């Protein structure tokens, strides 16, 4: 059974429909990427999965549970973590407090706590008493991912994690996400940075106008420059 199954979802903001029957699955431990230009529906797909914008048609199941119309906090408690774009931390709370409010013990006793989070993101250890609002973009991104890990998710949704970060920071972030993948965490990654996607993904889906236009492995994509040309170049 797939860990996440997104089956033909249609999502709208009021009268404006954004997704037109998106479908894909995520197997346990897999990194699946959604790629495409701005406005193709990557973020809306993420928001539909986590329950922030409910799909009007179609079905989303996580580990066999139908989560299509479920509230975001209940989906999160089931084991789905969400790292939104633009690094949405709580600026008034310190780094440690940001982590602490998301703390949720793992069922198997081998979950994420602050020590494990700090070992993945050592920079956060030194700044744990600083308010979130004064951190750099890279530090805020690490904190957002770390905060999601404190929830002990079994599936992590990462929405454009490399956006707006310096190349060196993106490189570090890529290695940290790779470490998460190696730990067995399933990840759905929405990204525009192609090298980032190709390095991390097991399977990729290219989105265009709210539909999946192409699905394949990173090697398939590398072998199809015309696909990249058609859907990903500006």
């Amino acid at each position, binding site marked *: 059974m797939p860990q996440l199954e997104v089956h033909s979802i249609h999502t709208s903001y009021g009268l404006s429909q954004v997704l037109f029957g998106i479908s894909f699955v995520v197997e346990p431990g897999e990194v699946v990427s959604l790629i495409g230009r701005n406005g193709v529906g990557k973020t809306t797909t993420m928001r539909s999965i986590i329950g922030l914008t409910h799909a009007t048609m179609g079905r989303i199941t996580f580990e066999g549970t139908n989560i299509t119309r479920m509230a975001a906090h209940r989906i999160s408690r089931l084991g789905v973590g969400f790292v*939104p774009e633009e690094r949405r931390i709580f600026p*008034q709370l310190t780094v440690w407090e940001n982590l602490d409010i*998301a703390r*949720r013990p793992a069922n198997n006793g081998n979950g994420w706590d602050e020590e494990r989070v700090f070992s993945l993101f050592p920079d956060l250890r030194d700044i744990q008493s600083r308010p979130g609002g004064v951190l750099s973009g890279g530090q805020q991104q690490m904190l957002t991912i770390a905060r999601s890990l404190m929830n002990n998710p079994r599936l992590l949704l990462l929405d454009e994690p490399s956006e707006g970060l310096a190349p060196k920071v993106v490189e570090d972030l890529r290695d940290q996400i790779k470490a998460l993948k190696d730990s067995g965490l399933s990840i759905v990654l929405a990204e525009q940075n192609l090298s980032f996607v190709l390095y991390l993904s097991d399977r990729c889906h290219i989105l265009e106008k709210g539909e999946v236009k192409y699905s394949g492995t990173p090697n398939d994509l590398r072998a199809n420059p015309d696909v990249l040309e058609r859907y990903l170049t500006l």
Partner: protein
Amino acid sequence: MGWAMPRGVLTTCILVLVALACVPLMESRYLIDLSTEILVYVLFALSLNVIIGFSGNVSFGHAAYFAIGGYANAILLTTYEWPLFLSFPAAVVLSAAAAAFVAYFCTRLTDIYFAMLTLAFSMLVWAIAFKWRSVTGGDDGFVGVNVPEFLNSRVPFFYFTLVIVTTSIATLWMICHSAFGQTLIAVRENLTRAGFIGVNTRMMRCAAFIVAGTFAGVAGAIFAMYNRGVYTESAFWTESAQVLIMTLLGGMYSVFGPAIGATTLYLLERFANEYTEYWPTVLGVILLVIVLVLPEGLVGLAKRIRGHIAGGN
């Protein structure tokens, strides 16, 4: 965030507490009465701050729980002749229950809709107090409250108020500095963000509302005994507006800001009433000053001045 107070805050609290404990030694009835009333309003304003400053919702109807606490304590003490150790907790529980009932409906909404619904419920409480003359005394108020013998003079009542208010403020401090308080701040900062990290935001806002209603009930129960009566004005929207202005004047994002706001506004009202009958006009000017010049209240102003001095050095 932990329960331990920063040293400066703790020292200030101890000094204020010692100063208050010494008030009866000055043998001024006026000063004892003034201090008792200020203590009640400090607790009332701090309770509202749990909703405004921590959960990020504006309530226009907080006076309802103050009035419910007051009426319940007064009626149980006088009509039913319950002893204080039963009537007081019962009044507080009733305020909490009323707050829970209102919170169930209000927390379905946010922003101005939330505020308007809190106002609507508080006006319902006012209307009940006004119309249910056989129980509440209607617009004549519920007068002649039976206060236990040991609290029947100024000084013991002042110390009783001091103990209850200090204990309540300490409890509020612990609540606001617990994991619950941290999570409330996260909810205040961004409901959506808090939701997708697993926080049941509606339940948190509901809990904050109940905590606030409970402590407003404590303040109301004390005030009814102090006044030897409860009047419908306690539930009227102007009372809710006054405590809201107290909270804004002190600074809603600081734990003790509303206490400073309550003290300042209460003293201003007392002194202004000696010179003019137009206190509402003065209050309007104060509100204008807060909105235009002091958005973070007096605590924010103090921080800005400290920042300027530190910058200058």
